[in-house]
């Protein structure tokens, strides 16, 4: 693909990424939503973050992998503990990265 075609592709990608990010915020922030809608939207953050996280932890190459070789999954154990106990973003992220680094360095 030559660079001008790449550029046009980027412009198209920008539009289809920006508009879904912009239009709901623009249109919905102007009016007060019915209660049911607000309850529904309040469940979106937890659902969407969990839906991004869990597949990253338990799926590997298109299959569920709960084995000990899935280090990303086991590194989540101390990470969740620290997250629940401290509720600190920094401490939790540090635990996750150090934990996984240690697991990867362990001779197994």
């Amino acid at each position: 693909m030559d660079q001008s075609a790449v550029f046009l592709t980027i412009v198209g990608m920008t539009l289809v990424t920006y508009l879904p990010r912009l239009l709901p915020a623009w249109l919905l922030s102007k009016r007060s939503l019915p209660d049911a809608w607000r309850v529904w939207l309040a469940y979106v953050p937890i659902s969407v973050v969990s839906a991004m996280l869990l597949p990253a932890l338990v799926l590997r190459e298109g299959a569920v992998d709960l084995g000990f070789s899935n280090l990303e999954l086991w590194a989540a154990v101390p990470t969740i503990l620290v997250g629940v106990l401290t509720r600190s973003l920094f401490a939790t992220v540090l635990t996750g990265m150090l934990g996984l680094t240690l697991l990867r360095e362990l001779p197994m």
Partner: protein
Amino acid sequence: MPMAFGYLPVGIAFGILALETGLSPLMAVLMSVMVLGAASQLVAVQLIALSADPVVIVATTFIVNLRHMLMSSAMSPHLRGWRWYEIAFFSYGLTDEAFALHAARFESGPLDKGEAIAVNATAHGSWVFGTVLGVIAGPVLVGIEVLALDYALSAMFIALLAMMVRTRLQFLVGLAAGLTACAAALAGLDYWNIVVATVLCATLGLGAEKWISRRSS
């Protein structure tokens, strides 16, 4: 800070990959400046490497990033009273990680406009900076992988969930969404799984809340 940690290594990886695919350094950086979506950009360079049709690439990007429509909707009650250009600027940087940070924040009170915009700008800045680093110094930086920087995003999602989950019902809805996303991915709904799981499980949460309040009244 953890967000910048998370974006830098992914940005570097994207920069390296984009050059290998044959994008010019300018186009690689431009894509990060304009599109600002890690997953969709990584998919896009893979598709460009396969010389896919631009229409296919744009359509795939749309599907991969459709979850932001839900995030934007969920943000909307917290953006009341913002000016249109403030919302326009804010929405531009509404990435997964920035959204997760806002969501954890507005659980504990109203959103601060300046801080919210600064979070999004930080996300954007570190993503572009990572891409520039990858494009310029990619081969030199490969050794940095010793520290598990690639885990920063997952660890951050864990931290944010720990902050957001307050009730048993919220926990159950989150668990259901995670499991549904896995099941949908296994069923072959590669890029749709997050959207499908979120819509289903937010509805589940609404239904459960209505059922509980009807039973107790």
